[in-house]
């Protein structure tokens, strides 16, 4: 399947964080690439979403949904920087 990008996560992330998150800056822990969430490489399949670094494919974020509850794991993302809302 062709990947999407972080723009596709705008709705669910806005739902979870009550603000736009696609302009959130990140620095990849593996390759040092910096960018914003909108630029991540995103694979969505049913209840599971994986976001990878555009520089090196490292997994930056995983999002799973079960019975209306979301579980979010941002272990690959150092220094998330939130822009002004």
């Amino acid at each position, binding site marked *: *399947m062709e990947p999407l990008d972080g723009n596709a996560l*705008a*709705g*669910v992330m806005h739902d*979870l964080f009550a603000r*736009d998150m*696609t*302009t959130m800056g990140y620095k990849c822990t593996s390759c040092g690439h910096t960018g914003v969430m*909108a630029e991540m490489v995103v694979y969505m399949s049913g209840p599971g979403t994986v976001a990878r670094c555009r520089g090196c494919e490292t997994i930056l974020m995983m999002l799973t949904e079960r019975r209306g509850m*979301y579980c979010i794991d941002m272990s690959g993302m150092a220094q998330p920087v939130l822009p002004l809302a």
Partner: protein
Amino acid sequence: MERAALLRRLTWQTGTVIATTVETPRVKTIALAVPDWPGHRAGQHVDVRLTAPDGYQTQRSYSIASAPGDDYLSLTVERLDDGEVSPYLVDELRGGDELEFRGPVGGHFVWDEEFGGPLFLVGGGSGLVPLRSMLRHHRAIGSQVPVRVLCSARSLESLIYREELMKRAADDLIDVSITLTREAPSSWRGYRGRIDPALLSTAGWAAAEEPLTYVCGPTAFVETAAAGLVALGYDAGRIRTERFGGTGV
């Protein structure tokens, strides 16, 4: 950041279909009346949610085709024959029906006038949808930012917003280029074939003019266009991209 279970904070709302417009044999624009629409920024999208009689739900993102100041919220949807959601939106939805969605969302793939220009809008297939919102917004606010638009479609019949694009091309500030990738009428005087650096450089701005570029369409199209622009010396920081999934145009 730590693992955390979180609650939802963006609510679903309902719009009523006011009209549907046939853009091409596979594409329709759906105009929605939405009570208390908060307004949007050109380039944003909504998430549409369908619920089956048995309660099964599924959702997809659709860019907003209308300008912030337009009367109705419009979406333009291309039917994928084996798709779960798009055939319903294109073939089944009728005036008076209700549609559930949440939004507007997205703060990256948006154009505000203060971002400046010159603007280069590159769209493949239905990737023209958010770019149309930007073009309409540009006109509505009387922006003086010069714009070049490059559209890629399989054939002239499958090019969405054809008349509107032609009309806008009469404006001195707006330059529209079209490339047809599969078939072209014998009288066709536009471009042919898939986008590549040569076409991007002819239809776009010189890198030295520091253009602000928006690229949208099928994933493979966006990758090709973005790589081509960087190869031409465009500042990657001034190229914004949005991928719809699927392969080329």
